[in-house]
């Protein structure tokens, strides 16, 4: 803002006011987030992993599904105590699995599946949770009581059992995996959003909107939802790692994606079976997954600090 003070007529005042750049909540949060080194490093790392996953076919000469009996369970070239005979098949940066497939490519393809499950299931939980919570919180009264009671009931279900039943019964359908995991995660989202909506409902701008003749649907979509996004964004970044973990849990039980397609969970569970003879099969997928979950958690923590009004 210029330091010239409030002199001059109304028109210049107006012009000056227009020159002032308002700082929105999000610009503010971004400035604070930029100062959080852990969060920024995490974002860069995640971007790299995601990019590698997308570009997977271009990054390696090997196919994720091609079986090569000449290079079964080869350690990476640089692994201590590598069998020399294994190097003949070309460079396998992360070694090969028990079917001679290149682990590097498979880890990247696993990243595709794991990240896709994470994003899509989280998106599902986001859509359901935000809509459900916003309606319950804003409409309130008896409807709210019934809706939240339903959430309470679902909360006490041992959900993982239902996911297991679903996956077993419907033949490991990939689409169902998204739905099933998303169906667990929206409950917390709905609770968070409802709590926020309850307090926003009391604010003056909602009253103003109602006085201005905006209908309930308009108020929910245009005034309530945009104002609950802060906590929602934080929770989303913390949901994605949970979903990735849930998927790997199912994969470990043998209920994840099917061969030759793979995910980090599948790779890890393969790796644990050969931990005595071929440690790289466990270490690389586990490291990628742990790193990704680490990054999401740091970003979530960073976002929470950046958006938390207590700090201001």
């Amino acid at each position, binding site marked *: 803002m210029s330091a010239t003070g409030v002199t001059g007529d109304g028109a210049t005042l107006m012009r000056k006011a227009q020159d002032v750049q308002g700082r929105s909540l999000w610009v503010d949060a971004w400035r604070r987030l930029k100062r959080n080194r852990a969060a920024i490093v995490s974002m860069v790392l995640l971007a790299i992993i995601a990019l590698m996953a997308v570009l997977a076919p271009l990054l390696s000469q090997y196919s994720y599904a091609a079986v090569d009996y000449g290079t079964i369970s080869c350690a990476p070239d640089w692994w201590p105590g590598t069998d020399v005979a294994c190097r003949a098949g070309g460079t396998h940066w992360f070694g090969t699995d028990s079917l001679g497939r290149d682990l590097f490519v498979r880890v990247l393809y696993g990243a595709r599946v794991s990240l896709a499950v994470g994003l899509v299931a989280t998106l599902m939980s986001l859509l359901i949770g935000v809509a459900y919570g916003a309606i319950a919180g804003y409409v309130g009264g008896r409807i709210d009581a019934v809706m939240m009671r339903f959430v309470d*009931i679902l909360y*006490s*279900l*041992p959900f*993982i*059992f*239902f996911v*297991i*039943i*679903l996956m*077993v*019964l*419907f033949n490991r359908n990939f689409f169902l995996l998204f739905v099933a995991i998303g169906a667990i995660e929206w409950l917390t989202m709905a609770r968070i959003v409802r709590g926020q909506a309850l307090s926003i409902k009391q604010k003056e701008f909602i009253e103003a909107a109602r006085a201005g003749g905006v209908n309930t649907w308009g108020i929910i979509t245009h005034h309530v939802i945009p104002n609950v996004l802060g906590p929602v964004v934080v929770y989303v970044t913390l949901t994605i*790692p949970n979903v990735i*973990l849930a998927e*790997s*849990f199912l994969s*470990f*039980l*043998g*209920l994840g994606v099917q061969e030759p397609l793979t995910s980090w969970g599948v790779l*890890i*569970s393969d790796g*644990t079976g050969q*931990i*005595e003879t071929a440690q790289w099969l*466990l270490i690389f997928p*586990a490291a990628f*997954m*742990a790193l990704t*979950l*680490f990054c999401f*958690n740091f970003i979530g923590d960073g976002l929470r600090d950046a958006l938390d009004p207590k700090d201001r």
Partner: protein
Amino acid sequence: MTAYALRRILGAIPTLLIIITLAFFMMRLAPGGPFDSQRRLPPEIEHNVKAAYHLDKPVYEQYFLYLGQLVHGDLGPSYKVKDFTVAQLIEEGLPVSIKLGLAAITLALTLGIALGVSAALNQNKLWDHAVMSVAMIGITVPTFVTGPLLTLIFGVYGLKLFGADISLPVAGWNGGALRNMILPVVVLALPQIAVIARLTRGSMVEVLHSNYIRTARAKGLPGHRIVTRHAMRAAILPLVSYLGPAVAQLVTGSLIVEQIFGLPGIGRYFVIAAVDRDYTLVLGGVIFYAVIIIVLNLLADLLYAVLDPRVSYRS
């Protein structure tokens, strides 16, 4: 509070009914049945087998038959584990699962609180950062990675301390011997230690900055007394409400841990039963775990009211 407890117990009945209904119809919707096999049974025998288990009746009739049995406390026979009822199988696995779960939650609470409090007392110092980084690892590395890794280190390679071989058994229960329990309990408890440490640190930091702690300091109370008598009491309260979810996660985790270490608990039956379409066993497992989770959630809420005088359930 008795009224509140009663209301909660009554409220649990519809919840359980929904759970049972959902699980029952989900199982029946799926293709395949418990008595499908590669070698087809002669039609008369198949008919007799199905009739014996009421599987020849319409599904809704089976549903009400099952509910009727359930009211009498009968979970039915297992379709696949021959000559066993579901109740017998659960009874058999129960001591193992409970011992495992109790040991894990005890370890998680003591170690988690101790780590969280010590981190909070050293806020933003090296120890704090170290504890929180390790906790983050504990949260992000799944049980089925820590399980085999620890087995490899402490079981297969073994440890030699003062010349004595103290390597731990890699699997098996052996009647619940301490040596057999160490690895599964540690693996099961690790993620919970991490979560509890983070929670404790967060609330402890908040409490340490509150006014009454400053008052206690101003009174000249010794530091350890402030921590144990004043700060910790308030700081571990949020943990009580985390106990419910923690138990649910332990149950989920025990599915994996029992599989990794080949323990004869309840969890190991569940996945096999679902694959085999062992309807009664799957339903029995779901009901059993649901009851456990509901009861422990209720206990956690009641405990909260006992510990925190600000909370009252009188309506």
